[in-house]
C-alpha cells in the first residue's frame, strides 16, 4: 500500500528520532521541490529562496529530535519557512520591492536554471512562463499575511484549515486573507489580461 506524503514524512521523522540519519535525506527529497516553489513565491528571488530552504532544512535537522508531531511535520516545516522568509523580508527593510527574477538570466553558470515544460509548444511555453513570473511578482507585492495565505493555498494546495494552522490563526481569518489576496491578484492582473 502506497503511503501518503504525510505518512511518509512522519515515518521519516520516527526513523530519524531512532537514530537513522538517512531518514532526514528522504525527508528533504519529499519536500524540497514543493517547498522551493512556496519560498520562491514568498520571496520572489531564486537565490534567497534557495538559502532560506537550506536554512529551513538545517533548522529541521537541528530540532527534529525534539519534534513531537502534534502539529504535523508539514505544518511545522512551513512555519519555519515562513518565519525565515519574514526575517529576510524584514532585513530588506520591509520594502515592497518586486524582484524581476527571470531565472533564465539569474546565473551565468546555470545553477538556478528552470527546466522548460516539454509538453507545451514553444509559444505556449513562453506564455506560461510569462504568466508564472507575473503571478509570482504580484504575489511578492501582497501584504505579508495575504502573501503567506495565498502561497500556502495556491502554490502548496493546502486547505483553508491547514493554512490557518500554519499561520496560527482561525480558519475564518485565513479565509479572509485568502479572499483579500485573490481580490488583489485579480485587480493587479486585470491590465495584463486586457493587453492579451
Amino acid at each position, binding site marked *: 500500500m502506497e503511503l501518503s506524503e504525510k505518512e511518509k514524512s512522519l515515518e521519516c521523522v520516527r526513523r530519524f528520532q531512532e537514530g537513522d540519519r538517512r531518514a532526514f535525506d528522504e525527508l*528533504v527529497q519529499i519536500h*524540497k*521541490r*514543493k517547498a*522551493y*516553489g512556496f519560498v*520562491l513565491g514568498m520571496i520572489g528571488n531564486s537565490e534567497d529562496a*534557495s*538559502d532560506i*530552504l*537550506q*536554512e529551513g*532544512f*538545517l*533548522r529541521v*535537522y*537541528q530540532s527534529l529530535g525534539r519534534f513531537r508531531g502534534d502539529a504535523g511535520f508539514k505544518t511545522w516545516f512551513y512555519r519555519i519557512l515562513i*518565519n*525565515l522568509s519574514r*526575517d529576510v523580508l*524584514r*532585513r530588506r527593510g520591509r520594502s515592497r520591492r518586486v524582484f524581476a527574477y527571470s*531565472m533564465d538570466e539569474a546565473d551565468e553558470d*546555470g*545553477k*538556478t*536554471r*528552470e*527546466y522548460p*515544460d516539454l509538453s507545451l509548444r514553444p509559444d505556449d511555453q513562453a506564455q*506560461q512562463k510569462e*504568466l*508564472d513570473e*507575473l*503571478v*509570482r511578482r*504580484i504575489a511578492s507585492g501582497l501584504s505579508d499575511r495575504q502573501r503567506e495565505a*495565498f502561497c500556502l*493555498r*495556491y*502554490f502548496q494546495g493546502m486547505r483553508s484549515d491547514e493554512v490557518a494552522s500554519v499561520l496560527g490563526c482561525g480558519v475564518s481569518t485565513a*479565509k*479572509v486573507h*485568502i*479572499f483579500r*489576496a*485573490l*481580490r*488583489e*491578484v*485579480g*485587480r493587479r*492582473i*486585470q491590465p495584463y*489580461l486586457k493587453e492579451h
Partner: protein
Amino acid sequence: MALCFLIRRKLVDFAEQNLNEGEVRKVQAHLSECGPCRQEFDLIRKGLDAAHGHRPPVMDEVFWKRFDEGLWKKIQEGKPSFSPAPFLAPLWKPAAVILPVIIVMLAVLTRMSMISVGQQEAVLVREAAWLINESPDTQVLSALEDDLTDEMEILFVLDPSLIRKIG
C-alpha cells in the same frame, strides 16, 4: 449591505464550487442583482484563474545537486549560515513596553518608601513619648522650645544688645 457582507465571505468558496446547493442559489441570486458584489466576484475569479494557471518552478537536477551539497555542508558545519535577525531586533519591542513600566514602578515604589519613612518617624516619636511618659504633642512643643533657644543663642552671639532689648 449586511447581505453583501455575508455573500462576499462566500465568494471564494462559490468560485471554487465548495458550497452546497442552497448557498449557491443564494449567492447567484444576490450576484444577479448586486453590481458591486458582481465586480468583486469578477476580481476573485481572475485572481483564481491566475493562481490556478500558475505552475510551480521546475528546477533542473544540477540545481538540486548543488542544493543538496550546500545543505549537507551546512549541516556538517552545524550552524546557521545567517542569523535570522540582528541580535537586538527581537528585544527592542518588548524593551519599549517594559522600560516605561519599570520607570513608573520605580517612581511609585520610591514615593511609597518616602511615605513609609515619614510613618516610621511618627512611630519613633510616639515611642519616644511613651518612654519619657509624655504625649507626642508635648514632645513637639519641647522640640520647638529647643529650636527657639538655639536661635536666641545665635542672635546673642551676633548682637548681644538685641537679646537685652527683647528681654
